[in-house]
């Protein structure tokens, strides 16, 4: 159990996040916060995918599809006008209980009534979870790369669907997505006045995902997932319901992707088909690989840094190519990530130097089970 280490890591990261914000604001570079915020949401997608790909050994080549489901559901339901709702008694009480929300018309001086942004967001998570069950249930009962193929097809279908559907804005996507209220006076939105608050919303969300995944991987469940990756038949013969665990992890990572996609959409105020593209899915996998596969921390750092650099335009017109090259280089030379060989060395060195146990148990105090 690494409870102490985890707490220390989270605390340090929190301090770092605050320092970055203060630094950016003091030096008058607040605009950095916009890209940092978007990079944080993307890092959450990458962390969730690392649980699936890195820990459990199941590959998804369609995670941009889940991001898109979260994003488009949030955008569509929170903007689609429910024209007659405001007139009826039912509509009025739904407005009062914040199931519906009204906002001023963009052009003109009436009001538009739509589903409340919070519910639109939750609907996105639900839909992503249901779709993940639909794809994962058949694909994960089998051994092998069925999930990779099924998710590849799924990602392409989502892309084509959003591109070809008029009410999802086709090639233009959906814009003027309203803010998602979080606390009184604080909302997930791109309004310049809320930039710092939104940086902290994204940081808080990503830190929570980090803490959740760190605790999960360092537990009975986490061991079961790694066991499935290590040897599926041995895991099954040791009492692990491999199909159920694989499905749950797939659904969890899909919901995390949809959550990040939804928040990103409220933050940017818009969503377009490019976020659903197959290349985006490849990017997520590339970042998981570069983070060291089975490493939540690696996924966070690489997901965050590479996305930030990409958003800053550091890769110029080679943007997509950079991620492709990262994937090829990692897979060919160090499949355990750039720090894989180093980590192996450290583990071996420790095993030799310090045969004593991390928790300091000695053989005498542990009773033999078989006499």
């Amino acid at each position, binding site marked *: 159990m690494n409870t102490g280490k985890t707490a220390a890591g989270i605390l340090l990261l929190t301090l770092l996040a605050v320092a970055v914000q203060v630094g950016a604001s003091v030096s008058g570079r607040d605009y950095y916060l916009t890209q940092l915020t978007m990079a944080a949401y993307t890092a959450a997608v990458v962390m969730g995918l690392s649980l699936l790909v890195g820990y459990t050994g199941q590959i998804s080549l369609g995670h941009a599809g889940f991001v898109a489901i979260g994003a488009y559901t949030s955008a569509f339901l929170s903007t689609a006008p429910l024209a007659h709702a405001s007139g009826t008694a039912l509509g009025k009480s739904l407005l009062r209980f914040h199931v519906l929300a009204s906002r001023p018309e963009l052009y003109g001086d009436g009001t538009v009534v739509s589903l409340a942004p919070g519910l639109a967001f939750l609907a996105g998570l639900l839909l992503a979870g249901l779709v993940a069950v639909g794809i994962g249930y058949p694909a994960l009962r089998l051994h092998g790369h069925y999930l990779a193929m099924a998710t590849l097809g799924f990602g392409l279908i989502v892309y084509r669907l959003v591109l070809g559907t008029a009410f999802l804005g086709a090639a233009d996507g959906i814009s003027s997505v309203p803010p998602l209220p979080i606390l009184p006076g604080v909302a997930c939105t791109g309004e310049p006045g809320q930039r710092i608050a939104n940086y902290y919303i994204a940081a808080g969300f990503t830190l929570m995902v980090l803490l959740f995944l760190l605790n999960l991987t360092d537990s*009975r469940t986490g061991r079961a997932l790694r066991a499935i990756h290590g040897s599926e038949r041995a895991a099954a013969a040791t009492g692990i319901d491999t199909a159920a665990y694989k499905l749950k992890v797939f659904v969890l990572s899909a919901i995390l992707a949809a959550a990040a996609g939804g928040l990103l959409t409220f933050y940017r105020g818009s969503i377009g088909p490019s976020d659903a593209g197959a290349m985006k899915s490849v990017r997520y996998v590339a970042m998981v690989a570069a983070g060291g596969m089975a490493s939540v921390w690696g996924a966070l750092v690489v997901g965050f840094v590479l996305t930030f650099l990409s958003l800053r335009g550091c890769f110029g017109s080679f943007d997509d190519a950079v991620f492709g090259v990262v994937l090829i280089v990692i897979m060919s030379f160090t499949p355990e990530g750039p720090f894989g060989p180093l980590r192996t060395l450290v583990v071996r060195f420790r095993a030799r130097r310090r045969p004593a146990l991390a928790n300091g148990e000695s053989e005498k105090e542990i009773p033999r089970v078989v006499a």
Partner: protein
Amino acid sequence: MSLLEVQGIARAFGGVQALQEVSFAVETGQIHAVIGPNGAGKTTLFNIISGLLRPHAGRITFLGRDITALPPHRISRAGIARTFQTLALFENMTVLENVMVGRHLRSHSGAVAAALRLPRQLHEEKRIREAALGYLSSVGLFSKAEAPVSALSFGQRRLVELARALATEPRLLLLDEPASGLNPRETDDLAQLIRRVRDDSVTVLLVEHDMSMVMDISDEILVLHYGRPIASGSPAEIRADPEVIAIYLGGEFTGAAC
């Protein structure tokens, strides 16, 4: 009632009839060996008992319950553990973690308890760890607990698999060639350990090519040849069986050599 009853099992791979009309029973508290030349179908039999393969015919009952169609994790929960002839360790984990996975069935905490680090989950995690260390101690690998499995010798890796299987607290333990790759001294230690496991009220079903070990520790032996049972009985009876002797002298069945 026998602990395990195998009735009329058959299984083919394409044209190869790997098992045909295999029936036998394993009595509680015994060490029951299955021997036979390479390709006789021993591993296939283990795969079927442990649920990793479906038989094409036949029935398996364990503790009076039909387990033929159960998935492997349910069979494991019913009380059958196994080791693999071609090792199947979790290479991505330490020795201790491998054995901790063996405690999966004997613990309950789910994802939410883990994520929130509930006290009950922390407590259970500590118990899993201590129990796993106890099993490592039993196979003499306590000092290797924090080592990655990849750093172990072949013989030690076999012992990690054994500890992992024991950690599930099985009623029946299937061992697929546990002595292969071990030197004579390690083999002796292993024979002692298997006896102690049996004395600890774990019934053992053993596939092994090391004939002196099999003759030494088994209560009952089943001989398979081309997927069919050709003899069964006590070690003395098997040694005296003309058909078994014929296979031996025919040179197909070369004892410890494979």
